[in-house]
């Protein structure tokens, strides 16, 4: 079974984000970048499928040289091969999807995994876009996956419940937290990853469809009032919520 997992290199969720001087991108100074948290579940699922059915897992990332660090993490977790689609230009989800799809078409995997969203842009779009470009079915926000007889049954999260989805293979899946428990890279894996080659390719270049005009900070809250320090303040709180805020 050929498994591909597309991964991204993103600011750590604990990072404070500030806006760069151009007013339309973030200031990367001092920010730690990590493997996108949802992609860890995607890598883990591919490794488990490989362990069950044999095959190979290829990790792919589109971006600048810095993405090699994240590809090394995937190698350390146990993927067989890492490919950097090297590109430093500004891309939106549409152009990232086309860049990834171009390479995926060449290698035609049986299963393609993504994290359900990248915690930088938060579009939650690239995985499903890739499926559409490749003419493949997809299941997004997957919590459980069973493969048998060339087909898959996946559970996906919906508001207040779950959907069980049946799909033919090859297919694209996007992983939600809870799909599995991602492994930590072993020391041996980390050492081995250092010397493994990262293949570099150039992705297709196309025009983005969207443009960031400006970035701004969310309106900051005025620090609110501390109403009190014991149970007697409860009635005041309820009164404020009812009469001042009018939310209850």
């Amino acid at each position, binding site marked *: 079974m050929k498994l591909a997992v597309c991964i991204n290199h993103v600011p750590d969720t604990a990072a404070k984000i500030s806006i760069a001087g151009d007013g339309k991108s973030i200031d990367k100074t001092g920010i730690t970048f990590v493997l996108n948290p949802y992609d860890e579940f995607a890598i883990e699922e591919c490794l488990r499928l490989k362990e069950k059915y044999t095959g190979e897992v290829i990790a792919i990332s589109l971006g600048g040289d810095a993405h090699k660090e994240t590809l090394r993490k995937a190698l350390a977790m146990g993927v067989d091969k890492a490919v950097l689609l090297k590109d430093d230009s500004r891309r939106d989800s549409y152009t990232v999807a086309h860049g990834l799809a171009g390479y995926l078409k060449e290698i035609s995997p049986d299963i393609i995994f993504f994290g359900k969203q990248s915690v930088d842009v938060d579009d939650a779009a690239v995985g499903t876009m890739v499926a559409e470009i490749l003419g493949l079915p997809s299941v997004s926000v997957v919590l459980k996956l069973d493969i048998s007889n060339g087909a898959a049954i996946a559970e996906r999260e919906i508001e207040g419940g779950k959907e069980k989805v049946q799909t033919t293979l090859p297919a694209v899946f996007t992983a939600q937290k809870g799909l599995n428990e991602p492994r930590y890279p072993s020391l041996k894996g980390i050492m081995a990853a250092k010397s493994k080659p990262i293949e570099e390719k150039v992705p297709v270049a196309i025009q983005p469809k969207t443009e960031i005009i400006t970035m701004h900070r969310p309106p900051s*809250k005025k620090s609110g009032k501390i109403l009190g320090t014991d149970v007697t303040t409860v009635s005041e709180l309820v009164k404020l919520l009812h009469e001042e805020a009018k939310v209850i």
Partner: protein
Amino acid sequence: MKFLAVIEQRDNKLKKSSFEVINTAQSIAQQLNGEVIALVIGNKVQDLSREIQGLGVSKTIVVQQPRLEKYSSTAYPKIISEVAKQEQVSVILLPATAFGKDCAPRLAIKLEAGLAADCISLKVEGSEILATRPMYAGKVLADIKINSAIKIFTLRPNVFAAGSSTGAQSDGEVVDIPLTESDFASIVVETSQITGKLDVAEANIIVSGGRGMKGPENFKMLEDLAQVLGGAVGASRAVVDAGWRPHSEQVGQTGKTVSPSLYIAVAISGAIQHLAGMSSSKYIVAINKDKDAPIFQSADYGIVADAFEIVPALTKEIQKLTGR
């Protein structure tokens, strides 16, 4: 200029987010001298079209057949894009729900259209539509312009105003979109819904608990409070990682980003990745023993006290008011 408002229905009931999508489409269309066409897909959904027509759209298109009873991530986007082409629409709006987030990327590719996902504001500037959407879980907001001929927007639930019925009573137009077997390569075979459970992403009031709740058994008091408020229970990452609550309730950067009208943070200290996910709530109440907890910086009203004392008293007090 034609706008297509894609309606989400479940079990032949319109979702609240659909009212928000229609109303937003109408308000933008009005400013650009456009008209709004609504599209509803499902099985035997024609009756819904009367309700949608009542919201004052210029036309409602109904695509229905038994196999469309449940969602298909292959068939539904095909239908939407075919209708968009037939009607020559320039703007498509969908709710940013599990349904809309799954359809929109496919539409973007099919129609070579730019997508602004999970928007929290749309406004007209000149002849352009400018979308504001959160990035980095809301740590920054970006104003986005779409440069393609067709533009797709998904709207975050609970942020945009929902329209109300004008009382119009006409039927939608049933349109046949031919589908083949391969259009159902992926299809929902079963839906398990926890009855009566409100999702945090859709709730107007959220009562969230953090590690200070000390254990899963103590969330009962938050459930009680949520119930009298008609809201949903949320949780911090620490609580979800400890296995006390399901991930579907997690609020924050690796959970859900929410904007309810009232967010009550109970025994949550307020880590940056949690604050990012909820700070756009209209009103925030923090209840925490630690007066230095960062959550108080974001809260409109705070009580520095033991949650175990405050929450039951708060539930009782609100019950008096709401009678729930």
